[in-house]
């Protein structure tokens, strides 16, 4: 996983609540899709198939965004991880939301995409700064110091649990971390074989 330390780039505002993963990436029926083309594929197009020039990601100043700024419960719905891969394929490495859906936040952490929740008191002011900047000047996100800086106001602090911060900064292999506990896993299996044996075997009784 690509480590995340700092990020400087254009912040694009998409200020709606409850944006779901069907909106972020409509269901994909191609084994190896162009993930960037799938990002908000429905919302980006008008009914006649042409680009909607008013959709934020279609506006010239937001063609190469690094940070997405959005509302509450971002990424609700389906667990599809493509909704994170499409962000990364577009160059978005940080999402600043009022809150995230549980599975989406997890999928972000698994892919080195930084999910930032600002304190409620800071959200509206930050969103206003992003709108005012309108892609003309970059914002900078620093995960080491847990702060965002940029045009229109003072640096803003955000909270990220130490465990999640460590994983992102070091770009740790999550499976590798867990495999350090291989002995614990084997011990659990052995205990369970004795105490709750039906959990450790699965077989078709008709065969």
């Amino acid at each position, binding site marked *: 996983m690509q480590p995340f330390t700092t990020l400087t780039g254009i912040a694009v505002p998409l200020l*709606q609540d*409850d944006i779901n993963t069907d909106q972020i990436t*409509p269901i994909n029926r191609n084994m190896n899709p162009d993930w960037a083309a799938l990002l908000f594929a429905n919302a980006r197009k008008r009914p006649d198939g042409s680009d909607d020039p008013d959709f934020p990601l279609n506006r010239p100043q937001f063609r190469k965004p690094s940070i997405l700024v959005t509302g509450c419960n971002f990424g609700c719905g389906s667990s599809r991880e493509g909704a994170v891969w499409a962000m990364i394929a577009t160059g978005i490495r940080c999402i600043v939301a009022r*809150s995230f859906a549980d599975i989406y936040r997890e999928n972000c952490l*698994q892919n080195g995409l930084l999910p930032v929740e600002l304190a409620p008191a800071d959200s509206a002011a930050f969103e206003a700064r992003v709108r005012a900047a309108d892609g003309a000047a970059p914002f900078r996100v620093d995960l080491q110091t847990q702060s965002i800086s940029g045009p229109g106001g003072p640096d803003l602090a955000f909270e990220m649990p130490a465990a999640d911060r460590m994983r992102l900064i070091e770009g740790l292999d999550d*499976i590798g971390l*867990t495999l*350090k506990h291989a002995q614990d*896993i084997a011990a659990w299996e052995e205990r369970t074989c004795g105490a709750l044996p039906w959990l450790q075997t699965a077989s078709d009784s008709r065969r």
Partner: protein
Amino acid sequence: MAQTLFDKIWDAHLVARRADGRDLIYIDRHVLHELHAPHAFKKLEEAQRAVRRPDLTFSVQDHTVSTQPGRDDTTNAQSTPFLQAMRAGSAKNGIKLFDIGDPEQGISHVVAPELGMVLPGATHAVPDSHACTVGGLGALAFGCGTTELEHILATQVIALKRPKRMRIRVEGRLGPHVTAKDVALRIIAQVGIAGGRGHAVEYAGSAVRAMSIESRLTLCNLAIEMGARSGFVAPDETTFAWLAGRPWAPQGRQWDMALAHWGTLASDDDAQFDRDVTLDCGELEPQITWGTDPSQVVGVTGRVPELASVEPGQEAAYRRALDYMGLTPGMAVAGLPVNRVFIGSCTNSRLPDLEAAAAVVRGRHVAAGVVAMVVPGSSTVKREAEAAGLDQVFRAAGFFWGESGCSMCAGGNGDRGEAGERCVSTTNRNFEGRQGKGVRTHLVSPATAAATAIAGRIVDVRQMVTGAA
């Protein structure tokens, strides 16, 4: 100390706590599907890692399969690579696959319970957000992403932060043609689509106790629609009777041991929940979504909300939903003409769902101009429905009777509507574009869907069926 059922299951599956503070929770049964597993198989192979417990892992073909009679790999050209990669990856890793043509193929959340792979107090993972469905049997289930799926394949554990606990008590006796689906929609309307975020939800109360297992599966299926990754019902005699004799459930002495353990699986009387919600559903009428998220719900005799009733800050979302759905404030929902009706999905495709729909349809015909489909949740359900003659009831009425799979729920197999069409559906998500770009989805129970197909417009099933309400 008094414990909730959630705590009992979590603690029994706690393998270790990682240095980063995450709990490693053992996964007793892991069920994969072809839309996401092939990617994880590939990553695993690149990392030269093996599947730790192929004997506790199962594969199904459900998301992309054609529902056409006589289907094969090529019926749906876009699906072919998914089906073949799933077959190859499952064989290579020694994982039992319920393939197209297998008499027990179907939607994972239907197949795993009906075969007895899901057990009370067991943990369950699927790379699909509706994994929570199987909580209806008292299992603790986690929907997950593709990287987490790869993690579970390699380690048989999932690394999680312990969620908070929420209890939702549903009281009262449900009226005729009022179902678990209606209860679940009412709960989401009350709690909100983010109300369960960060929580594991235990459903309790007299109405839940009175529900069949199939109804509990429907109830738990919609836990994710309020943001809860896991939802479950404590197992009871209904659960044990339903599981007894299922082919993959424990047998003989192991069954007796399991039964003794399962009797302990309840929240202690004085256990504390982080949040407690109670609903009385004694007066509940059939429910229907009017908007573009599953919390935008009214009774079927109700009206689209007026702006004045919308919570502050939600006005823009409200207007957007109205615009997408082609509705105006205050209009009655009943009477809206529909183009499509879909009965199926992991929410409502089990035998009792099809029986409820068939009871409404019998002797009637789908309205002119309406495309109506029934897609059984599994090949087993399909066979049982056919043995009971339900397929004849649906076919005679003008419904398409399909092969089992996820079908129009997410359209991963190409079963979709056309832009602007109004679709009444027994599925779980009325999101913009979910059933096809521009399709206007209303979520309902199977009985309401069946009645709507017959009338050609949204109706109160109680008025269509003699002797009710």
